[in-house]
């Protein structure tokens, strides 16, 4: 507080400071927001994306998938909204959080309180979704969550959350564990990055293996920031395992596969998470030879579900998406963003009103009967957690200079046989 020589100015100065505070804070935000008339001119969907930071690559892919969905429906005049029994265009309001949770919190709040969006779509992954969960619950706005699979989000007392695309990470390794048991692979090494996405997978794997009487010969957490697995690989090799399973984020998987290649290690089976989602990225970083004969969870577009009854099928999606965005290499995250859009679309077609509770109730009505290119959409009606599709296991087998994902488990999806042990 600054005082000029005359004390009588004090009230003026206080007023100036007050105004300064308010102006700066208000200016910081701008105001928009749709007025609620009887029939809204558009359905507003708030979301965030990360243009930079740790999650940038994945987040942008997912955001582009959602945008693609919005453009598709708007071309046809919008989404059929049951509450008004007419087609209404959708509008995506999106801000950039740069992978920062504090910024993301401000922005989710901004979308709800200033832009007054009808619904939220979370940014990629558990970290950026975590801040949205309590905010959406507090403001009673339904949060559609494409990829934030953290188990702690899904509780029966939170009716404002729906996981749209991936099942929660805890059930991912089910097929993998059964594959290992069926193949009677007994010496298994598990290394995982310590975050809830990877830890939940490691735990599940360990417990299913225990059910089959198998205890890993090596079971170790490493920091998610690990970029060099040299020493860890040397230790793993000393245990002479048949299968080496690494759960990590994409950077971990790249470093791990590079470490195997550079150290000249040979294992009968190597499994990592992200080649199944971002094959092009991993392949570029590690090289064909580094990925060949390794295993992963394949996700569309590496394989397709052919019972699609809602939205585009895989081939149509790839073709339309590539033409619309002028890109090659559709990846799983584009599909995840698109699928979130489809779930929103179907909720609007079924909900009695735009209120979050009605939207959420509508989701329960079609859960289990909706099949998209991402597989069956089926959620736990109480928590909103996705349990639709068990992720299969695929091996990347070289064929004609490229890598072909061959699904090796479970039998009903299999497209080929595993080459085991890897040559």
């Amino acid at each position, binding site marked *: 507080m600054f005082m000029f020589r005359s004390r009588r100015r004090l009230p003026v100065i206080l007023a100036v400071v007050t105004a300064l505070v308010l102006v700066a804070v208000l200016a910081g935000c701008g105001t928009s927001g749709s007025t609620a008339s009887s029939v809204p001119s558009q359905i507003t969907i708030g979301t965030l994306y990360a243009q*930079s*930071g*740790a999650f*940038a*690559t994945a987040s942008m892919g997912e955001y582009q998938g959602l945008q693609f969905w919005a453009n598709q429906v708007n071309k046809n005049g919008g989404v059929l909204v049951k509450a008004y029994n007419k087609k209404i265009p959708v509008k995506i309001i999106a801000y950039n959080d740069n*992978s920062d949770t504090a910024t993301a919190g401000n922005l989710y709040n901004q979308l709800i309180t200033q832009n007054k969006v009808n619904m939220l779509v979370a940014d990629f992954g558990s970290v950026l979704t975590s801040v949205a969960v309590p905010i959406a619950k507090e403001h009673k706005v339904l949060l559609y969550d494409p990829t934030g699979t953290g188990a702690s989000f899904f509780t029966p007392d939170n009716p404002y959350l729906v996981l749209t695309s991936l099942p929660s990470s805890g059930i991912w390794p089910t097929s993998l564990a059964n594959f290992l048991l069926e193949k009677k692979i007994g010496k298994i090494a598990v290394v995982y990055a*310590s975050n809830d996405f990877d830890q939940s997978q490691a735990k599940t794997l360990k417990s299913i293996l225990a059910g089959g009487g198998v205890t890993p010969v090596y079971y*170790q*957490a*490493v*920091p998610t*920031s*690990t*970029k*060099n*697995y*040299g*020493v*860890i690989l*040397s*230790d793993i*090799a*000393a245990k002479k395992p048949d299968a080496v399973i690494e759960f990590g984020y994409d*950077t971990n998987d*790249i*470093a791990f596969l*590079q*470490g195997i*290649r*550079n*150290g*000249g*290690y040979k294992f009968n089976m190597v499994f990592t998470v992200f080649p199944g989602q971002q094959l092009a990225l991993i392949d570029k*970083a590690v*090289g064909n030879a580094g990925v060949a004969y390794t295993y992963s969870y394949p996700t569309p577009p590496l394989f397709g579900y052919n019972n699609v009854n809602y939205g585009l099928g895989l081939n149509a999606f790839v073709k339309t998406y590539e033409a619309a965005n002028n890109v090659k290499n559709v990846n799983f995250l584009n599909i995840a963003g698109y699928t979130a859009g489809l779930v929103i679309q179907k909720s609007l077609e079924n909900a009695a009103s735009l209120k979050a509770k009605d939207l959420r109730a509508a989701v329960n009505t079609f859960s289990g009967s909706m099949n998209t290119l991402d597989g069956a959409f089926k959620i736990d009606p109480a928590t909103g957690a996705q349990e639709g599709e068990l992720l299969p296991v695929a091996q990347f087998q070289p064929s004609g200079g490229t890598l072909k994902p061959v699904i090796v488990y479970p039998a009903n999806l299999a497209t080929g046989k595993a080459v085991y042990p890897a040559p």
Partner: protein
Amino acid sequence: MNLPGAQKGWSPDMLEFSLIAGILFGLFFALVGMGLNLVFGVMRIVNLAHGDFMMLGAFGAFWAYNLLGWNPLVTIPVQGLAFVLAGMALYYLLVPRLVALKDFEMISLVLFFGLSQTIEALAVLAFGNNPRSIFQPVFGQAPVHFLGRTFPVAWPVSAAVSLFFLILVYFYLYRTRAGYATRAVMASRDEASASGVNVDRISALTFGLGLLLASVAGMLSLFMLGSVSPDFGGNITITAFAVIVFGGLGDPVGTVLGGLLYGIGLMVMESYLSSWANILPYVLLLATLLVKPGGIMGKEVRHV
């Protein structure tokens, strides 16, 4: 070994591997610290942007490899020269102004902190945020077998490059006239100035040399640390500082010793206590400053 996260089982095999890997990494960490320590020794400035210059060196090597197809070993001299010139320019731009100020050690620290933030932000805008790495086969395909253990070929190559530059620094300091003057400035700026040493020129040269070493260490980080992204600088600066404080501030020989001990300590921890290995540089730095602030063989830094 009761700490949570400790590896079960203790095999002498693993210890042997850790020791050898530790020496290879130790030479690399000595190089990481050396540039920082020379600058500190001559100017009493902690260059908080040291890690960011390493990051720039790594990106330089990455782009030279990807766009021009240059082997990183070829990039070293070309890029090194550019860094020496940039360092000298930066010196004349910033440092003489600083030295005149009253609280110059503190101000220069904050200034270089700002520089570090600026470089990182520019790198994000220019390169994006993805971590970058170079295929190790650039140094040859096969892993190296030594004493019955397998090492990625890039480790001994990086250690050899580090050793080469450490020896070069030794020759510069102890066998050349400029190096002799540099050591005189390190011992006492005033006395060196009084005995006719051009302190400004020596300082500028040292700053350039510091950046050169940073660029080489940054290039090697692509192989030793896995990959490099624009936010790489902060932590590696602290690691470098831990190494040189441990070895003794302003003491080049101590830095080599500090680097080696740090490298061995890190590898042993990665083998036996891997989830705690991250914490090593910070604890080492705190413990040294508080318990033996002169480092294992240095002088006092406390006051009041």
